[in-house]
């Protein structure tokens, strides 16, 4: 299980065609996330939480500085390699769902990581049961409710057993039972030496989980234990 370090990372979004100025989100951001811990990240809307998560999964590349997984600079890793270490449930999970059928969605990564088709289907079905998704096994993924999509995205990522699990506002749309289920999974991952980063506006979550709080303000970061 590897730590993830941000070393004086700078990032800005390129300006749009109408408005030429680019948008600076991070400057000189330095932060290390060590495995075996849960981090809860919060901060005002638009401060860059989702951007942080996308940087950590290699979906975005820093303009300056570097991001390391263990000893490896992420710039030199392919997405398929990064995905072995980091799994992300996006703030808008419908964007990360690919297949029509929920079972195929969960099996997708397993098959691409080399599992046989029928075995992958079995694992996927078990995951559907695990996340209480059997009732919607025949609903097209894009028609699922947000909470169902979150659980499906989480299941698809979690079956691949990444070291890190990133949940971008995923808890806010889950009912009580699903929320505990997801938090259970997180706790189990952490017990096995993995780590989790939960982005959430909830003030109490960090206390509830005994997690490390990361507060992001516009441009600056502070860590509170």
């Amino acid at each position, binding site marked *: 299980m590897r730590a993830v370090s941000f070393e004086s990372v700078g990032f800005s979004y390129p300006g749009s*065609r109408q408005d030429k100025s680019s948008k600076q989100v991070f400057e000189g951001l330095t932060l290390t996330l060590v495995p075996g811990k849960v981090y809860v990240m919060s901060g005002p809307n638009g401060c860059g939480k989702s951007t942080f998560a996308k940087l950590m*999964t*290699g*979906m975005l590349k820093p303009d300056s500085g570097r991001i390391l997984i263990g000893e490896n600079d992420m710039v030199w890793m*392919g*997405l*398929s390699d*990064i*995905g*072995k270490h*980091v*799994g*992300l449930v*996006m703030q808008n999970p*419908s*964007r*990360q*769902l*690919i*297949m*029509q059928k929920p079972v195929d969605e969960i099996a*997708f*990564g397993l098959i*691409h*990581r*080399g599992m046989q088709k029928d075995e992958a289907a079995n694992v996927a079905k078990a995951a559907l049961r695990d996340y209480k998704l059997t009732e919607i096994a025949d609903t*097209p*993924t*894009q028609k699922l409710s947000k909470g169902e999509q979150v659980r499906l995205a989480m299941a*698809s*990522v979690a079956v*691949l057993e990444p070291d890190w699990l990133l949940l971008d506002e995923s808890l806010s749309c889950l009912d009580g039972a699903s929320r505990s289920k997801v938090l259970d999974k997180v706790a189990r991952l952490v017990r096995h030496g993995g780590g989790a980063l939960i982005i959430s506006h909830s003030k109490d979550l960090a206390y509830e989980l005994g997690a490390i709080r990361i507060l992001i303000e516009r441009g600056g970061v502070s860590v509170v234990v």
Partner: protein
Amino acid sequence: MWSDMDPRSKIFATLCLTSMALLVRMPLAALLLAALTAAALIAFGIDPKGPLKTLIRLAPAMLVVAVLQVLLVRSGRTVLSAFGIGIVTTGGLGAAAFMVVRVGIIAACGYILSGIGFADFLLAMKSMKVPYEIAFMAAMGAKFLPLLAEEMTDSLTSAELRGADIKRMGIIRRLRLYSEVLMPATFTALSRAEGISWALELRGFNPGAGRTYWRKLEMRMSDWMAFPLGIIAFAAFLLANY
């Protein structure tokens, strides 16, 4: 200078340019057409860097098509031959060059059209008596195409993060993955378009009723000039090429 030109003259200009781009046959005419497109971009106040970037992004695909055309089109003089077999002909080179010019002009027209605001486009369509439903669908399409692209990129990224190695995949598997990814992206784009038309109507935007618009489209001198200019260019073009 004329960046706030009337959307109708922009639409007219792009119609002229794209149809000329599709019809062009003579090399000299193609060059002149490219120059005319550049002039139109400047006249409409659009930075040519944008279309150029699009061209550069399309470059790998265009290169493949160009190479195929160079190899497959057998006409004109042979320029390069090996073992007594002609490999490259002037006809092939010409076809490739035409293709590049056409793609470039169409990309530039896309930029001119995308510079028209959503509401302006609808107003222009209304003033040209285009049925509202059709105009709205067209405007939606134009608005959601970039979103669709963004959504597909996200799905593809998530596929790669889960182990799909797109760069090393065979062409069949890659096409299958693309088609799988296109489905959910189209679905979200459509449902979002539906959501927007609901939201518009709930906020009192009733396209059918005879409503008044706060903003009025006005054709100015420079706008009226676009029409004779376009017609003259088109006529000269037809005379030269056919």
